[in-house]
């Protein structure tokens, strides 16, 4: 029988994969000097193309679908590629967010005029740090254009991850997404020892957690007879509380919670955020979290929906741990990137509240929160990459003293992002938090909301501390200076600021889109 392969639905993933392959071809055949000139257009065109296609197919299906199902809006509903991909409202919205984040991420990747030696990635990753080779390669201005195929493959992995409809495809998407990021993490141009260490840690722990995921899916498969979510969900309902099932759910949870950065599995986040090159941290911080939460929601709402009363207490414990540890550990950080890493752990905790709510508003609020959080992270890390001193990025907080006076524009935009992360009204962060907390209370997780309120109070302290450091403390001699970037980063910062403000002041259109996205397809 002929394999069913709905190109229309899978278009975004297919476009990105072909772009990846094409960029490998460019790497192979085009001489070094022209490679960048070809890679950049390929990347931006492919992302833009797949986004345009996604939006058009979404509206088309939407109208068509609405017509088909007599107007009562049931959300986009389609199982594709022989059951291994589920294209539905939330899936498409996550893919849309991912493509936007990838676009801005690509802008940051392409930035070359911030670092005098070139872009943020090492001229030759294989050279020994501090060796003659490295000095020569840098002097001759070599640049590692292999980052683009890796970037494209990572994006395609992220696109597939939230929409995969069976455990095997999800595992493979997880690997496709993670491997390029392990590699990119080790290719920083500055402080290469730290970068290599970050990539080693990310790799070892990533492989470790994917093994858990795999064993969990094996156990689920042994009970349900198939790995597709639909059949798993129906199988769960009739088998009584089979212990193998719950162990499987637990192990899969370990795999996914690692990717999201929830507390017992969060220890990689600070080291990787601090070690890896900043453009990667920006893209990975936003992209991985969005994709991983997409997958987490799909698995726990569709596949294990029936076992809701079993896995909610576990998620309660994880959410509380994540929020509390995330915000408390961030208080005494001295490195700006590590502090932002812990704050990202705290934000994971807030989104877990929406997961625990197990209500349709839970899905829609998490989608909104991830969109808002994604762009704020991109903006924050884009700005961090601008604050530099002679040796590279000035990430120690003492080097940020008095930045408000030295370059008010960058400092005030950074303050805006910090307020967004803290959740001050009129910023996207606030609307996101409000939506998530409302979903939490509707889902009966009142205690979680109280813990969230307390931890965001603690979070407000260390955000405010940075604002005080920038605006109210006098300038010292080792205050870093701010580099004027090229249009790439300016565009990236501009987009993120605009999104952060718009989603704070006029969130209504996006909130409508999110609600219209509806629920997961079975």
């Amino acid at each position, binding site marked *: *029988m002929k*394999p069913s*392969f709905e190109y229309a639905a*899978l278009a975004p993933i297919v476009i990105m*994969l072909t772009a*990846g*392959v094409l960029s*490998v071809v460019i*790497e192979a055949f085009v001489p070094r000097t022209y490679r960048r000139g070809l890679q950049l257009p390929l990347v931006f065109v492919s992302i833009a193309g797949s986004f345009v296609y996604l939006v058009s197919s979404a509206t088309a299906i939407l109208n068509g679908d609405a017509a088909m199902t007599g107007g009562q809006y049931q959300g986009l509903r389609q199982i594709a*590629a*022989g*059951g*291994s*991909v589920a294209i539905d409202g939330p899936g498409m919205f996550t893919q849309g967010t991912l493509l936007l984040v990838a676009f801005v991420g690509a802008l940051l990747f392409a930035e070359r005029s911030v670092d005098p030696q070139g872009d943020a990635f090492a001229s*030759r*990753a*294989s*050279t020994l740090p501090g060796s003659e*080779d490295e000095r*020569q*390669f840098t002097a*001759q201005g*070599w640049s*590692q254009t*292999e980052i683009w*195929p*890796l970037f494209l*493959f990572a994006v*395609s*992995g992220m696109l*597939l991850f939230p929409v995969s409809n069976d455990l*095997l*495809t999800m595992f*493979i*998407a997880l*690997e*496709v997404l993670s*491997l*390029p990021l*392990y*590699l990119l993490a*080790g*290719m920083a141009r500055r402080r290469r020892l730290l970068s290599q260490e970050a990539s080693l840690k990310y790799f070892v722990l990533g492989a470790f957690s994917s093994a858990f995921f795999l064993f969990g899916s094996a*156990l689920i498969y*042994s009970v349900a007879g198939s790995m597709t979510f639909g059949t798993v969900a129906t199988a769960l309902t009739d088998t009584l509380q*089979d*212990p*193998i099932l*719950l*162990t499987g759910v637990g192990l899969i949870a370990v795999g996914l919670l690692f990717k999201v950065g929830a507390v017992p599995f969060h220890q990689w986040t600070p080291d990787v955020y601090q070690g890896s090159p900043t453009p990667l941290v920006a893209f990975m911080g936003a992209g991985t979290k969005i994709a991983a939460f997409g997958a987490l929601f799909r698995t726990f709402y569709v596949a294990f929906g029936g076992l809701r009363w079993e896995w909610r207490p576990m998620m309660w414990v994880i959410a509380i741990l994540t929020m509390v540890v995330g915000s408390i550990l961030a208080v005494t950080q001295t490195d700006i990137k590590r502090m932002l890493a812990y704050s990202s752990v705290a934000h994971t905790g807030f989104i877990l509240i929406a997961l625990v709510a197990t209500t349709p508003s839970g899905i829609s609020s998490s989608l909104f929160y991830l969109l808002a959080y994604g762009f704020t992270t991109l903006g924050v890390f884009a700005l961090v990459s601008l604050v530099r001193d002679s040796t590279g990025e000035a990430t120690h907080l003492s080097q940020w003293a008095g930045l408000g006076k030295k370059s008010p524009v960058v400092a005030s935009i950074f303050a805006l992002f910090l307020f967004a992360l803290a959740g001050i009204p009129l910023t996207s962060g606030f609307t996101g938090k409000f939506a998530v907390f409302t979903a939490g209370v509707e889902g009966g997780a009142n205690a979680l909301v109280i813990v969230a309120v307390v931890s965001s109070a603690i979070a407000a302290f260390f955000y405010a501390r940075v604002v005080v450091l920038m605006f109210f403390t006098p300038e010292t001699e080792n205050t870093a200076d701010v580099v004027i970037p090229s249009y790439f980063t300016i565009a990236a910062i501009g987009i993120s600021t605009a999104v952060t403000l718009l989603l704070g002041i006029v969130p209504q259109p996006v909130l409508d889109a999110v609600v219209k996205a509806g629920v997961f397809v079975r």
Partner: protein
Amino acid sequence: MNGESVVFWITAIFAVVGALGMVLSRKAVHSALWVAFAMVNLAVLYFTLQAPFLATTQIVVYTGAVMMLFLFVLMIVGVDSSDSLLETLKGQRLLATLFGLAFGALLLSGVASTIALRDNGLDVANGDYGGNIQGIAHLVFNRYLLAFEVTSALLITAVIGAMVLAHRERWAPRKTQAELSRERTFTSQVTPLPNPGVLARHNAVDTPALLPDGTPSQASLPKQFRETSHEDEAAKEVTS
């Protein structure tokens, strides 16, 4: 105790011994060999589980290729690198055993549930398309076609990764033999630099050799022993 359980119990014990061997052996190469041994046992188990294709791929791909890659890397890293078994991190071993046992116990209590899995065998499935391999092929190219295509991306990433991180380029074209000889001869020092102490009263390392014209050659002294004042003189000697 029919044939299958006999085979199971032997290979199972060997597999567990292999795993333990991997964890507990001091030398890295021994661990690699223990792992290979355990994998072979697993291949045997696959045969009992009516998965001939899997068993062969296990032997050929996994044990053959992947483990060999490990051995190659071990050679790069140093075959005799062995790390002492005493623990550096405080409390790591104790906690590791504690958590390991706890996790193992919970896992096994979950898995060894009272409900015996209904074992309805694969004869039917293997028979559908005329054999195990055909069945798997049918599934791979029908049901999991997207997964199959996406793994290609995975493999390309792996290749690029290996190239990026491990392959060392040259930043200047390789010097041909002619260039090397011209470089040596045109530089001032054609004959090998004199050893310290040559044609001098004693062969202590800090006694400078004498040049044909009788002046002491600073260049012959190791860097540490040259008096600072003569530093430039030595340099001039080399380059002139």
